């Protein structure tokens, strides 16, 4: 490794950093696309995950099995091959989506399975007597789940859900392979347009890192709140 080359001519080469600076709007467009994909898929995957965990807790054995098969199936697949299936595979069946739609749908459907499995794990830790007590108080159906069960599942599994959020953020980068114009796509296009090979990716990694630190900070606050309420594992 040639350290002089690294320090003098590449990393601190003002001309190359100037290119990155001039292309800053492109980075910001990519970053905002990444954050949009992330935010929408977090909400979508959480809502769908909450539905699936109810399927897995259903009294009907075939509904329960369907939920299980969905969750286990997704957990055995890489995200990218699932995105391939939606974007390159489904048109054979006459279902055509833009790369953006396929990517977003892929993130939601894929991560909903992981969210459901996390929530199921937390649910199995809840004392059964509590649900019975809630029923005795007149709670039932969606109200019982939304008001009594779900808040405890979320607070109780905050650190694991937080990890899943970080995986979701990182999985958005796979979508550049199916031509979604995210942050990594932006970095790669600046790299190939001007042949500045290092700086664009260093900038991108810095932005992913900041986002991850923000997610971790948020999870820490939720975890502290949960412990105050006597929930979650310290």
């Amino acid at each position, binding site marked *: *490794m*040639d350290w002089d*080359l*690294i320090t003098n001519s*590449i990393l601190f080469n003002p001309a190359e950093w100037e290119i990155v600076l001039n292309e800053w709007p492109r980075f910001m467009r990519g970053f905002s696309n990444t954050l949009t994909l992330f935010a929408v898929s977090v909400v979508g995957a959480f809502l769908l995950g909450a539905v699936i965990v109810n399927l897995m807790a259903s009294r009907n054995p075939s509904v329960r099995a369907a939920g299980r098969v969905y969750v286990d*199936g997704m*957990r*055995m*697949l*890489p*995200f*990218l*091959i*699932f995105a*391939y*299936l939606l974007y*390159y*595979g*489904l*048109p*054979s*069946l006459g279902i055509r989506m833009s790369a953006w739609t396929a990517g977003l749908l892929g993130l939601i459907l894929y991560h909903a399975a992981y969210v459901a499995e996390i929530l199921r794990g937390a649910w199995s830790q809840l004392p059964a007597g509590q649900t019975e007590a809630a029923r005795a108080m007149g709670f039932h159906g969606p109200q019982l789940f939304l008001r009594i069960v779900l808040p405890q599942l979320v607070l109780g599994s905050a650190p694991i859900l937080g990890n899943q959020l*970080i995986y979701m*953020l*990182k*999985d*958005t*980068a*796979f979508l*550049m*392979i199916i031509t979604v114009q995210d*942050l*990594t796509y932006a*970095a*790669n296009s600046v*790299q190939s347009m001007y042949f500045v*090979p*290092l700086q664009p*990716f*260093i900038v*991108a*990694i810095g932005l*992913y*890192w900041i*986002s*991850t*630190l923000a997610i971790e900070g948020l999870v820490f606050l939720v975890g502290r709140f949960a412990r105050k309420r006597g929930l979650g594992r310290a």
Partner: protein
Amino acid sequence: MTGTELQMLLSGAWTTVWISAIAIVGGVPLGLVLGLGRVAGIPVLSQLLALYISIGRATPLVTLVLLLFVGLPVVGINIDAVTAGVLTLLLNTATFNAEIWRSVYQSFPRGQIEAAQAVGMQKGAIFRRIMLPQMSVAALPGLMNEATLLVKASPAIAVIGIVDLTRVTDRISARTYEPLPPIIAAGIIYMIIIAGMVRLQRVLEKRAAKWSA
């Protein structure tokens, strides 16, 4: 799909398997070194390792593999696609393994170390003969879990042109004009690989439980 295409698919699967295997086998000891280095309290080095682990865990593999493949030649390291792919998976999985080893190390019962010291064991021997075997058993579920995550993240290396199990579906559909069958077949092969790893994990954990009982 004809015989040739099936052969292409299997060779893609083999690429995924051996590249992942090297990264997993190398990433476990590298993670141990990083994790112990982080908690060793060596000034500067421990902080640098903590920073590396934090950034490494936040970096998408697609971004990292592009950085290494396009960036390293500029600083005088010539690297081919496969080496860049292996290196990416290795560096990434090591940061996750480092956290697993660290938590196992930190929850190791101190009383055992004191007992070993009391009977006159040296530091190195305590680590090798008392701590490491028990730490390995405790770290096993986490390390195996990380290994399956690595296989699921491995298609990222397709972005620099490595023909792995995901990328090979492009090649096959370029011949057959039918993308759906190879994608489904690749998905099934991934499922078989992951299911095999999960089963291996159960067998190993059962053995480890018998050993420590």
